[in-house]
């Protein structure tokens, strides 16, 4: 085990006060920088958190990215989410407009064509209905084919967004570590600043002239129950006197006698008391 130094100011003792003051200023400067960094990191962390929430639809609006908190990855994630939302909206509008899914359109189209060209049991009314539906389904299929690229874009955009959000999440964890480290560093700096401040206070605010010893007149006044000034009281504390006064003033008291508990002496009121054990 290392031997502990006798005072927390041992390393400062050989230094001049001005040097300690310079050290103090330097530590305060570093502490301010660390706290500013910490604020910046917290802002970034909040931005990451809101971006992730926005990406998973827990927030309806995109977080505001201020210029000083510019993060390319966050901007990319927001951009990709907006593109994904737009693609989803187009897809939903298309589905709402057509209603019939692509595979059913293709199947029904083939079915109607086969019936119209081979089934002799159809009535004219059925043929007319199928003819109209056939060309409507044909148009639907063309529209689905036209939007095929858009539909595959939705999936690609979703995958890209997921990858970006993974990276944002990874950065967020790294940011949390940085915050912890910076907070620890700031704590160390704050302790050091406190130590230096305490040292400086001790050496700058200390009295230059020692207090004079108390006079016998002070003792007499104290014994007579009169008031003492603060300076006189401080002098008595510094050089002693209060204890002497107390010892002289109060007579030694004898220790309190311990009272024995009184024992009830029970005697028979009538006759003679019989022994408890008659065999003895």
């Amino acid at each position, binding site marked *: 085990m290392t031997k502990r130094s006798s005072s927390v100011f041992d390393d400062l003792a050989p230094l001049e006060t001005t040097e300690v003051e310079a050290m103090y200023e330097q530590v305060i400067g570093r502490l301010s920088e660390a706290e500013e960094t910490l604020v910046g990191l917290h802002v970034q962390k909040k931005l990451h958190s809101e971006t992730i929430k926005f990406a998973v639809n827990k927030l309806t609006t995109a977080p505001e990215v201020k210029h000083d908190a510019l993060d390319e990855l966050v901007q990319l994630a927001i951009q990709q989410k907006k593109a994904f939302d737009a693609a989803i909206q187009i897809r939903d509008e298309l589905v709402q*407009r057509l209603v*019939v899914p692509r595979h059913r359109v293709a199947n029904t189209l*083939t079915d109607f064509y086969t019936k119209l*060209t081979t089934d002799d049991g159809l009535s004219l009314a059925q043929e007319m209905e199928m003819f*109209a539906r056939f*060309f*409507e389904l044909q148009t639907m299929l063309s529209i689905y084919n036209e939007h095929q690229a858009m539909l595959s874009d939705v999936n690609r955009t979703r995958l890209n967004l997921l990858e970006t959000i993974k990276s944002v999440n990874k950065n967020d964890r790294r940011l949390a570590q940085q915050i912890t480290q910076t907070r620890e560093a700031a704590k160390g700096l704050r302790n050091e600043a406190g130590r230096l401040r305490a040292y400086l206070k001790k050496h700058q605010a200390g009295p230059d002239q020692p207090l004079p010893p108390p006079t016998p007149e002070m003792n007499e006044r104290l014994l007579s129950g009169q008031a003492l000034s603060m300076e006189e009281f401080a002098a008595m504390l510094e050089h002693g006197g209060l204890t002497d006064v107390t010892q002289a003033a109060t007579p030694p008291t004898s220790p309190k006698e311990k009272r024995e508990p009184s024992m009830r002496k029970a005697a028979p009121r009538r006759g003679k008391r019989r022994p408890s054990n008659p065999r003895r």
Partner: protein
Amino acid sequence: MNHPETMQAKDLLTVTPEALVASILKRRAAAASSLPTTLEQRTEENNRAYQLANDARTSLKQLEAVENPDEGHHSVLEKARNVYDEHETFRRRTDSRLKKVKHAIKDSEEAIQFWSEMGEGGWGHLLEDAERLNEGGESSYAKLKQRRNEEDGQ
């Protein structure tokens, strides 16, 4: 073009209204060509059934008109009734078949006339839904769904 049964949806994207009308007309014409023969067969069959039923009805009435029937008359009368019922059922069946063929001929003639007119470019009203979709409107399926939802809402 492939056979209709093996055609895939992507092949059907190139099918035009003219081509489909032509296919329908071709099928209709093929079906119509066999209808006169069928009509002839059904008419002959129906005539025969009518004759049989008529003869059976006459015999039955004669037997029913006998005033003093002997012991075997009852069984002969029962047999004549069964024969009449059988021929009458056959007659009704053939009559139905004949009417069906006649209806098919009429429907076929109307259909051929209709699709012939369509082949000249008069199918506009049949392509209204497809044109609405092309112009960015809703499909008839979407409209139907919307109408059902509104009815359910009420």
